[in-house]
């Protein structure tokens, strides 16, 4: 298979989706003219109007995409930075998420919310360092957090062709990672977690950019004879509850590694699920390794101090697998 970067994989997914279905179009800020690598080449490759540069009107262009979706299109709405979804939040939560049920099945909203620039660690400070997927999930928006280039492509394709709103949350720290990516346009199914590394002593359920961190922690722990299973849910909503339960049944211990705000974050959901469904398998407290519950500060030492990394995952496993 070919190696490519995560961002190239996203770009390839958009090219293929647009070729396969003329209902797919992309809109966002500054996406034409090769200004952004994820959308590079699209405006040359496709008919006029299928790549739309939008004014700085997140609410209206998200609503615009909702309307196009109701009219039969499959819009992909890019947010340059993940936290720029907040000005559009009403159109996401009160409209895209709610309309299908309120309409009683009369229409669907096959829209993709393409959230670039999620995650912290680059000195982008408080307003450009969010991992805001929990907001979307709690609102009922299907959400994927691909951790590898292959999943970036496969989950983007799945998102675009799903008949419901799906958010694709792209962590800025993964964009330049490389990996093998299939040439075809296979879609990675939702609700289908993946064991990234098998182990018997503890399960680390790791999200997005913490998948590599968890693998690193696992490497370190193996030296001490602790065998960690790193399990990547890939899609957070719908979530592969069976996959989680199977892993916890095997290991009896669970650490959830999730770089979003702690309180009511996705890690809480995973812990809540396990505390209800896997109680009898659990041999130790469930540990969450998350961000601190504060705005991401700018300066490197304090920024790093509040973000989870391999070291914290390792410590959490040690604390319960001891």
């Amino acid at each position, binding site marked *: 298979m070919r190696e490519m970067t995560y961002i190239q994989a996203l770009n390839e997914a958009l090219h293929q989706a647009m070729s396969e279905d003329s209902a797919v179009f992309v809109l966002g800020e500054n996406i034409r003219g090769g200004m952004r690598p994820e959308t590079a080449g699209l405006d040359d490759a496709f008919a006029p109007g299928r790549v739309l540069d939008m004014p700085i009107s997140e609410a209206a262009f998200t609503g615009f995409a909702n309307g196009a979706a109701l009219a039969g299109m499959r819009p992909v709405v890019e947010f340059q930075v993940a936290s720029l979804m907040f000005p559009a939040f009403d159109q996401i939560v009160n409209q895209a998420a709610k309309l299908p049920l309120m309409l*009683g099945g009369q229409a669907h909203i096959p829209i993709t919310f393409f959230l670039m620039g999620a995650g912290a660690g680059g000195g982008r400070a408080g307003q450009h360092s969010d991992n805001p997927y929990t907001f979307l999930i709690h609102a009922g928006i299907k959400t994927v957090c691909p951790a590898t280039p292959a999943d970036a492509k496969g989950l983007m394709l799945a998102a675009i062709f799903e008949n419901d709103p799906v958010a694709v949350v792209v962590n800025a720290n993964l964009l330049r990672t490389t990996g093998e990516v299939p040439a075809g346009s296979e879609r990675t199914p939702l609700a289908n977690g993946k064991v990234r590394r098998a182990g018997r002593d503890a399960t680390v359920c790791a999200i997005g950019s913490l998948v590599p961190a968890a693998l690193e922690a696992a490497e370190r722990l193996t030296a001490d004879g602790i065998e960690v299973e790193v399990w990547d849910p890939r899609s957070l909503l719908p979530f592969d509850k069976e996959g989680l339960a199977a892993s916890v049944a095997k290991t009896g211990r669970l650490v959830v590694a999730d770089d979003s705000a702690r309180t009511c974050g996705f890690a809480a959901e995973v812990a809540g699920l396990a505390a209800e469904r896997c109680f009898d398998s659990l041999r130790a407290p469930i540990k969450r390794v998350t961000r601190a519950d504060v705005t991401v500060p700018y300066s490197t030492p304090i920024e790093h101090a509040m973000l989870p990394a391999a070291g914290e995952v390792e410590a959490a496993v040690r604390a319960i697998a001891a």
Partner: protein
Amino acid sequence: MSESRDPVEWYRRMRRLRRFEMRAAELVGEGEIAGPVHEYIGEEAVAVGVCAALRADDVITSTHRGHGHILAKGGAPDRMYAELLGRDSGYNRGRGGSMHIADFALGIFGANGIVGAGAPMACGAAYTFKLRGEDRVAVPFFGDGAMNQGVLLESFNLAVVVDLPVVFACENNGYAISSPIDEMLGGELVERAAGFGLPVRSVDGMDVRAVHAATSAAVERARAGGGPTFLEFRTARYSVHNIATGARMRDSRSEEMLAQARGRDPLERLAGELSGNGGWGAGGREAVDDEIERELEGAIGFARNSPRPRPETALDYMYADTYPDFPAPGWEQ
């Protein structure tokens, strides 16, 4: 079904709108309708005049005050009452209620409980027509109060820069609940829209002829690729903002203003004209009125006789694509 140039038909529709809501208000009073209901009474000429200028395949988006728009675009009273009564035979299978009624087969993309929120969706539908080379147009309805909502203002801009076949239909009834437009809106309403590069017109919204004429011109232009237009319809709601079981909202408006508005009643105005020029045809006004009564009576009967959704269907329609154990119920057995 929507397009019409026949004044008797316009009257019939206005009558249908008004009586639909008067009967709905009774049903609210009797506790048969749950939730809020925003009456459109007084504003009938706007919905009817606008929608009579639209084809069946044109699209509208509506507001919290949506019954009139939906009926005027061809919505069936029986399925609407069924929705208000929370029946499975309702337009939204009882899932939406008054504020969310839609009929996608008729281009009705739905009422909406969030002020201003329908407008960008109308723009997106219009863009779809444009991309596909279809000569359809989209008409978002919204009130004077919505003119202060960012998403609507952003939509004006989008419609202009993307050059969309959209006709913005602003129903200026002078109030947002208790707040008068003079205290809420800086500048002049149509000039605000013009500032976004939209051609604008202000129209007497109590005159169905004027509404129809202005809309027809704007729709024609949009269909021909001439881009968006903004129309202000000056109108008045007769009733309080919102009625709900057991509680009519307070009205902060003056008796005087209301009496004046009623003096311009759109139904009486057109009826007077038709009586004057012998335009009623065979049975006269009474025949039309009776026909509407019978229609609505039958519609209410249909609604009352329809079953409510079964509890075990409560999670249906949330997603088109579902998965095992998804969406999650609120408790595990």
